[in-house]
C-alpha cells in the first residue's frame, strides 16, 4: 500500500494526543500527577492539539474534504465513521476534565471520573483507527490479530514519552513517567518485532490461479498487462519496497522509535537531565513511529495487485 503522508500524520499524531490524554486520565485517577493548577489544562490542550492536528491532516487525504462531515453517519458499519464519531465524543470529557481540575480540584471525584472517561474515549478512538486497517480483508499485513493491540501500544508509548516530557519540564523530574515511557518502549519494541516476525511468515491470501478461477488448469502466470502505464490500482495498492530497504528501515525504526526513547526515558527516570532527556525521548518516538508507520503501509500488500503479477 502506498504510504500517504496525510494518513501517516493522522495515525502518529493522534497516537500522541490520545495516548497522552489516556495517561493523564489514568494518572489523575491514581493521584499521581503534579498538583499544579495549570498542569492538567496544559496537558489536555497539548493532547487535543496533537489529536486535532492528526485529524485535520487526515482530511488532506480526502478527495472532497468539504464533505468530511458526512463521515459521521455510518458508524453502524464503518470503522472510519466510528473513528470520526469517537474522536468528536472525546472532546467534551477531555475539556470537562481540564475544567474540573481547574475549578473543582485535582482530587475531586468528579475530576477523576471525567478523567477516566476521557481516557477511555481516547483509547476507543485509537482502537477505531486501528480497526480501519485491521478490518480490511484484502491486506494480510493489516487484517490480523497484531494490528489493533499494536496501535494501542504505540499510542501508549507516544503518550508516555509526551507525559514524561511534560512532567520533566514542569517539575524538573520524571521518575515515574520516565520509567513508564521506558517500559512502554520495551513493550512496543517487542510488539513490533513480533509483528514483523508474523508478517514475514504469513502465507499469501490467495494465488493467481484462484484469483482468475483457473485453479483447475494448473499454475497461472501473467502474459500481457491490460495497460502499459500505472493506473490507480497500481499506484495506490501495488506499492513495492525492496526487501533490503525494508530490512534497513526496520532497524532504523527499531532504534529511533523504541531504542533511543527507551534510553532517554531511562535517563530521565534516574534523574539525569530529565528536562532534556524526556523531551528527546518524545521527539525520537515521533520520528521513529513515523518511519514505523511508513513501513506499516509500504510493506502491506493488497491482493488486487496479484492480477498484475505483483507479490502479495
Amino acid at each position, binding site marked *: *500500500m502506498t504510504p500517504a503522508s496525510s494518513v501517516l500524520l493522522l495515525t502518529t499524531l493522534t497516537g500522541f494526543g490520545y495516548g497522552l490524554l489516556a495517561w493523564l486520565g489514568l494518572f489523575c485517577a491514581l493521584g499521581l500527577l503534579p498538583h499544579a493548577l495549570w498542569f492538567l489544562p496544559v496537558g489536555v490542550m497539548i493532547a487535543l492539539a496533537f489529536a486535532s492536528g492528526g485529524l485535520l491532516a487526515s482530511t488532506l*487525504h*480526502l*478527495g*472532497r*474534504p468539504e*464533505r*468530511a462531515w*458526512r*463521515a*459521521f*453517519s*455510518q458508524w*453502524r*458499519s*464503518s*470503522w*472510519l*465513521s466510528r473513528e*470520526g464519531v469517537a474522536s468528536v465524543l472525546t472532546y467534551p470529557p477531555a475539556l470537562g476534565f481540564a475544567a474540573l481540575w481547574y475549578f473543582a480540584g485535582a482530587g475531586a471525584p468528579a475530576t477523576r471520573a471525567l478523567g477516566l472517561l476521557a481516557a477511555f474515549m481516547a483509547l476507543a478512538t485509537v482502537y477505531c483507527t486501528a480497526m*480501519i486497517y485491521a*478490518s*480490511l*480483508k*484484502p*491486506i494480510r499485513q493489516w487484517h490480523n490479530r497484531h494490528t489493533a493491540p499494536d496501535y494501542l501500544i504505540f499510542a501508549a508509548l507516544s503518550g508516555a514519552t509526551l507525559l514524561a516530557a511534560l512532567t520533566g519540564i514542569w517539575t524538573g523530574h520524571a521518575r515515574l513517567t520516565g520509567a513508564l515511557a521506558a517500559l512502554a518502549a520495551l513493550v512496543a519494541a517487542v510488539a513490533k518485532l513480533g509483528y514483523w516476525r508474523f508478517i514475514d511468515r504469513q502465507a499469501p*491470501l*490467495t494465488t*493467481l*490461479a*484462484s*484469483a*482468475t*478461477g*483457473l485453479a*483447475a*488448469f*494448473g*499454475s*497461472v*502466470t*501473467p*502474459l*500481457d*498487462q*491490460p*495497460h502499459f*502505464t*500505472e*493506473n*490507480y*490500482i497500481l499506484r*495506490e*495498492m501495488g506499492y513495492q519496497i525492496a526487501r533490503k530497504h525494508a530490512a534497513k528501515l526496520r532497524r532504523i525504526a527499531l532504534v529511533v522509535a523504541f531504542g533511543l526513547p527507551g534510553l532517554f526515558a531511562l535517563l530521565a527516570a534516574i534523574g539525569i537531565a530529565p528536562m532534556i532527556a524526556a523531551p528527546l525521548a518524545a521527539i525520537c518516538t515521533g520520528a521513529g513511529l513515523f518511519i514505523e508507520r511508513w513501513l506499516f503501509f509500504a510493506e502491506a500488500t*493488497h*491482493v*488486487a*495487485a496479484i*492480477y*498484475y503479477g505483483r507479490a502479495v
Partner: protein
Amino acid sequence: MTSLPQPIEGAKKLGLVIDLDTCVGCHACAVNCKEWNTGGHSAPLPDYDKYGADPDGVWFNRIHSYEATGKDDGCGGRTVNFPRSCLHCETPQCVTVCPTGASYKRAEDGIVLVNTDICIGCKLCSWACPYGAREFDEDAGVMKKCTLCIDRIYNTSLPEAEREPACVATCPSRARHFGDLGDPSSDVSKLVAARGGVDLMPELGYNPVNKYLPPRRAMIPTRATETPVRSGTGLGAALLTLVDRVLSR
C-alpha cells in the same frame, strides 16, 4: 446506508457471466464501457496525460492475459484472456467500510453503486475490494466503479434488446452474458450450471455475483510427438538414419 440490505426473498441478483473460453482479449468491452459510462450514471470517466508519455484514466474494465500451465490437456499451456471488473458481490466490504453512505448495494437487484454526490473520496472502499474494481476520479475527487450500466438495463428509451450492459452488447465473441443470477431458471444461471462457472477468490468470502466460465477442455486428443525409430545396425540402418535426418529438415 452502508450496512448491507436485508436479503429480499426472490430479489434479483443481476450480474455478468464471463466466458474465458471464448474471450479473445480484444478489449472491446473495456472501450465500449468507457464510451458509454463517460456519458452515463458516473460520468465523466476522466483521462490524465492523455497524449503524454504516461496516459492513465478511469476504466471499469481491465483486460488481462494469463498463461495457465501444468494440469493441461496435452497442449502444454494455454493463453487465457481475462476481463476484470466489479463482481457486484453479495457481501461486499467496499460497501460496509464506507463512512458516508455513498457506497451502497441495492436491495432490489444487488447492484453495487457509488453516490458521487456524497462521496468524500477517502478511498477506503478501493482498499476493501480484493478485485481492484474501483478506480478513483482524481479530477472530481470521488470514487467511481462499474454501475452494471444501470442507465442502460432499465432505460425504457432504448429498444428492449439493447437493455444490457455496454460490455455485453459490444462483445464480438459473445463471451459476456448478463442476467439474473439469483434465479436458477435464468439463462445465465443455466449457463453457469452447464459450464461449471466459478467465483474468483472464493476464500476471501465476498461471494461475488459475477461468475467466470473456465476454458473448455480440448476434445481432440493431441498426437504424441514422433520419435525416430532405429531398425538394426550396419550400413542399411546408417543410410536410413541419414535419410531420416534429411527428410526431417
